[in-house]
């Protein structure tokens, strides 16, 4: 008994240190990737400056978005360079060194816009270092639960039922944490708290299934029947795991998919740190709960011994 809790505590400390390390690595060491670009007329800041850009424009009205930018307009065989004042489907007005010039849209031939390009920092990506490991572990622990369920049905050994139940409990914890972190990220990245998007939907179903497992167990009186029903249902429910995992690859989805080789250096190290840490935490919680269940069993035994 003691050995289980000792193992759990070691795993707990290890997991805590590693996930904390992953957090520090993610926020203070790994770079912030860019989430698209913003463009501006002049250079305003050097922090996320990506360099100058040139944009070719072939119709006068498309210049409308670039008021304040430096433009070079070709019209009637001539070239005018200056700061764009305004542009619409009729005319283009440019401020040059020698006063404002208005060009009729009919004479417009081509234009080039000059300005600076900035990377938009994608802070939301930081969720990746802990949300993904948590979600992965929830799948893995569920797989263990299903495995123990099969073992239980094969052997009818109550220990496997206990392992199945505790695995499902750990799954519930990780599913809950995945949901919580995921919802916050959804708000950060998509501007909404929830979206009925394939991955989110299937994961939501998974959450319901895990909750249903406990509802089922709690409403069965007989101990062995409860164990059998729990095992059968966790096997059936496990079918949702591969669906949830692969659905972003099958159906067009907004949810980001990890593609191989996308990570390097500090990012990769932080990510792997987070994964190992989360595995350790999952193991720790599992062992902790197992220790608790075994203690309970010993108490039951001692009680029956005393009542004899």
């Amino acid at each position, binding site marked *: 008994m003691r050995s289980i809790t000792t193992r759990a505590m070691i795993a707990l400390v290890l997991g805590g240190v590693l996930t904390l390390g992953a957090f520090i690595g993610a926020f203070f060491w790994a770079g912030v990737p860019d989430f698209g670009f913003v463009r*501006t007329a002049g250079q*305003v*800041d050097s922090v996320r400056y990506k360099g100058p850009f040139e944009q070719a424009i072939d119709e006068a009205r498309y210049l409308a978005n670039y008021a304040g930018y430096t433009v070079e307009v070709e019209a009637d065989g001539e070239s005018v360079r200056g700061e764009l004042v305004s542009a619409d489907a009729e005319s283009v007005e440019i401020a040059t060194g020698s006063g404002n010039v208005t060009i009729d849209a009919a004479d417009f031939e081509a234009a080039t816009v000059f300005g600076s390009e900035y990377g938009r920092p994608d*802070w939301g990506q930081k969720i990746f270092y802990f949300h993904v490991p948590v979600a992965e572990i929830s799948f893995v622990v569920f797989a263990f639960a299903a495995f123990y369920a099969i073992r239980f049905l094969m052997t009818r050994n109550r220990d496997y039922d206990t392992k199945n139940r505790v695995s499902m409990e750990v799954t519930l914890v990780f599913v809950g944490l995945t949901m919580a*972190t995921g919802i*916050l990220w959804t708000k950060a990245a998509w501007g909404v708290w929830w979206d009925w998007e394939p991955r989110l939907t299937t994961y939501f179903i998974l959450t319901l299934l895990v909750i249903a497992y406990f509802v089922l167990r709690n409403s069965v009186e007989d101990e062995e029947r409860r164990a059998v029903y729990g095992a059968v249902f966790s096997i059936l429910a496990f079918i949702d795991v591969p669906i949830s995992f692969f659905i972003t690859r099958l159906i067009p989805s907004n949810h980001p998919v990890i593609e191989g080789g996308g990570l390097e250096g500090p990012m990769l190290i932080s990510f792997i740190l987070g994964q190992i840490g989360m595995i350790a935490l999952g193991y720790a*919680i599992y062992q902790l709960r197992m220790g608790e269940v075994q*203690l309970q069993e010993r*108490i039951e035994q*001692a009680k029956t011994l005393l009542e004899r």
Partner: protein
Amino acid sequence: MNPTLKEVYSLVLTQWPLVAGAYALLWAGMVLYVGMALKRLNGLGKQLEVLEAAVARRQAAE
């Protein structure tokens, strides 16, 4: 402020507290769960000690 910088920083400002909040939530959840589990474990340990002492007394008496 320059509109571009405003956009750049607005993204930084809205995203980053949410993401850090998510991490804080994760840790709070973990700590809470583990704390509760440890507390229960402790309580059970005490109960077991009492019971085992009773069993030992019973056996000594026999």
